[in-house]
């Protein structure tokens, strides 16, 4: 996952490195995902999210569609 200045920079980089275009997140979306994913990683009670929990989290952030499908 890389931070780009904008859409055209992503397109140029994908073309240059022959990478398929993936999915883009805003800083706010990524921050909310990062907080939910890693916010308690240092805590005793941390555990990995279940598949259902991860799907619910992605849905909550509007991350839907085949790219975010975990059961394919």
């Amino acid at each position: 996952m890389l931070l780009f200045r904008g859409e055209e920079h992503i397109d140029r980089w994908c073309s240059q490195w022959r990478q398929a275009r993936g999915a883009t997140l805003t800083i706010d979306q990524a921050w909310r995902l990062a907080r939910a994913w890693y916010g308690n990683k240092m805590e005793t009670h941390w555990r990995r999210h279940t598949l259902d929990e991860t799907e619910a989290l992605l849905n909550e952030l509007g991350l839907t569609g085949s790219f975010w499908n975990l059961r394919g």
Partner: protein
Amino acid sequence: MTGTLDTNVRVELYREFVETGRPPSASHLAEMMGKPAADIRAAMERLAAGKAIVLQPESREILMANPLCAVPTPHLVRAGTRSFFGSCVWDAMGVMAMLKTDATLETSCPCCGESMAIGVRDGQPAPDPGLIHFAIPARRWWEDIVFT
């Protein structure tokens, strides 16, 4: 109880990593925790199997205590006098989320090399026009987590 030992090893290794900015070795963890090194290494292997951490392929020392990365990357987080690397920009944001303190992520646009930064103050990122690109579909992230 391996479950309790694994939790204690995870918490201790993260605490040490965050405090010193470097991942503790298995032998250092064993010394700190007063446990046999073989028990600590076994716990680290179980944590890696459970995808809580990633070990280096040969030494079996810590490569990633996700979101922290043991080796230098282009994604640097500065928090006060401490600095950390994230394996990717999202992990670096995860470092800031995990530390729960004001911090700044320094990186650069992979396309043009222009420097970029994301600052987090009082738990919120500063408005930024940047976009994060995820190249690998979510269900394939752990097929090769180092590449991801």
